[in-house]
């Protein structure tokens, strides 16, 4: 059963497979890198989807005066609760988000009454994006050098030139 609440995860799978397939099947080195990037992007999407709490806003702390010192704790607890709620839910059902939300809503009611999406996946994915960029940059510079050395960026032609040498 395809339910809309799992749309993200279907997107993840599609992107992952598209990226992986491109990576393996294409001879052109730049296309391989593009495939790798798509593959990595799918993972980013996956993580961000994990962190989303239905009805939750962006995880940027909104000051509400008398919760000064407790805010860190609140954010932390919210994060934990969201996670625990995720544990409670059945893995494949759409209720996951619903139950999570209700569980969080309770906890949230005790804090500043603001629902945040889980910030941790976002943080992790910032790192992953940077890593992806670095990998891409390195990959592309390698492609430039390979082009200088071989005169081509098609893998089969490179192999041919190596075997002939």
């Amino acid at each position, binding site marked *: 059963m395809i339910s809309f609440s799992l749309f993200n995860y279907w997107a993840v799978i599609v992107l992952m497979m598209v990226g992986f397939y491109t*990576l393996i099947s294409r001879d052109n080195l730049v296309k391989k890198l593009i495939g790798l990037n798509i593959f990595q992007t799918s993972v980013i999407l996956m993580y961000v989807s*994990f962190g989303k709490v239905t009805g939750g806003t962006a995880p940027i702390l909104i000051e509400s005066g008398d919760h000064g010192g407790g805010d860190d704790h609140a954010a932390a607890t919210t994060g934990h609760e969201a*996670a625990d709620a*995720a544990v409670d839910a059945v*893995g494949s059902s759409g209720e996951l988000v619903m139950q999570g939300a209700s569980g969080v809503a309770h906890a949230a009611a005790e804090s500043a009454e603001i629902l945040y999406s889980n910030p941790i*996946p976002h943080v*992790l994915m910032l790192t992953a994006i940077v890593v992806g960029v670095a990998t891409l940059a390195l990959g592309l510079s390698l492609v430039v050098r390979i082009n200088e050395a071989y005169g081509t960026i098609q893998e089969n032609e490179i192999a041919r030139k*190596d075997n002939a040498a």
Partner: protein
Amino acid sequence: MSQNLPALLVVVPMMLAPVAALLNRSGPAWVAAVGGSWFALGAAVQLLRRVMAEGVIVYSMGGWAAPIGIEYRIDEVSAFVAVIVASIAAIAVLYARTSVIDEISEDRHALFYAAFLLNVCGLLGIAVTGDVFNVFVFLEVSSLSAYSMIALGQDRRALTSAFQYLIMGSVGATFIVIGVGLLFVMTGTLGMMDLAERIPEVWASGEGDRTIAVAFTFLTVGVTLKLALFPLHLWLPNAYTFAPSAVTGYMAATSTKVSVYLLMRFFFTVFGEQFSFEQMQLDMVLMPLALVAILAMSLVAIYQANVKRLLAFSSVAQIGYMVLGISLGSVLGVAAGIIHLFNHAVMKGALFMAMGCVMYRIGSVRIEDMKGLGKAMPWTMAAFVGAGLSMIGVPLTVGFISKWYLVQAALAQGRWFVAAIVMVGSLMALVYIWKVVEVAYFQRREGEDEIKEAPLGLLIPTWALVAASFWFGIDAGTTSSVAISAAETLLGVMP
């Protein structure tokens, strides 16, 4: 300062890397690299001593306690692996001075040393961290710097090898991230010890088991790709063959070892031995692959004409030994795997460094070009023979110690078939080592070119490793007690 040693271990090399790059000249950059590596060595040894005396060291980065903060958790295995990486780095950086001048163009030296320091930092980070996403970060730091270093090789195939490694390595790392993500969504935490507690809860509740199983699988594939377990080893032969000599000598002795450590960390600490082996039957996957790796890769090694390539395939076979030990699942078996991390690092480092000496003098590492080198470069070839004896498993060398424990572990479980394969692997090592020895000692050199012995700058680090391969084979007390203690910790950690 010593309180923050776990952090400094990683941070000092990391900070020295941009310094090296900025210094822009070969000599000063090298000094920075030496400083970083030797500091790391001192710190690692200090940490190992402390762990053996006091037990696990827990260090929270920035004072934020786990599981919110990232903690560094150093037990015997971590410290041992850190010592391995740091000591090989310390020796390799000395070796690199002479070797790099010969093989890499002058304007790139500073960047080479910067990449080297980043690699060291990355590997050490993997060894000491207690947070699974942090592992990914350091893994990528070390991998990216490795790709760069490999690409500096002289042959243009170094570029394609680096590219191939980049693609495969990134896929592997991404698989690890997927696995980590799936674990995170089910348990809400990224700390290893926390995960160790929560995974069984999730599993028992029956609701997250499919996700956990999928996470397990992604992690297995990702990690085994990084550690080049057959059949995910395809990046290794090319990468090792075409990289600069100093890089191969260093990497062959460190990067796959740390990935093996990662395997142990995930499957013994995070998932727990009982889960990994009994529920997920990991040993049924790892053991056959390891056995095939030993036999098939040793066989392929025998037929290689390029000695570096030969040694690369030999490395894949040796990784098979390590994984075999782990897959046996007993204290002896895991200890055998751990001690082989050290022993192989020393042996293979020495062998590749010896080949670096050969490359320096004759500009080639093909067997047919090595005729008569036994006479022309006696010290170099003697180093090769010495480390080669260790590969064969002659007693009083480190290679023997690994086999001793591994066969013991196998026989104690009644798996005589495994013991037999380990021995067959040794005999195959004999064949390919003898191949090189025969050409070097029994054939005469053609042509009138006068080949001199390798310079001291290359010989001394090589011989340091050869000496270590005998020293720790004659007195294996320290390494074996660390390995056994580490194995006991790993297997005893049950969530």
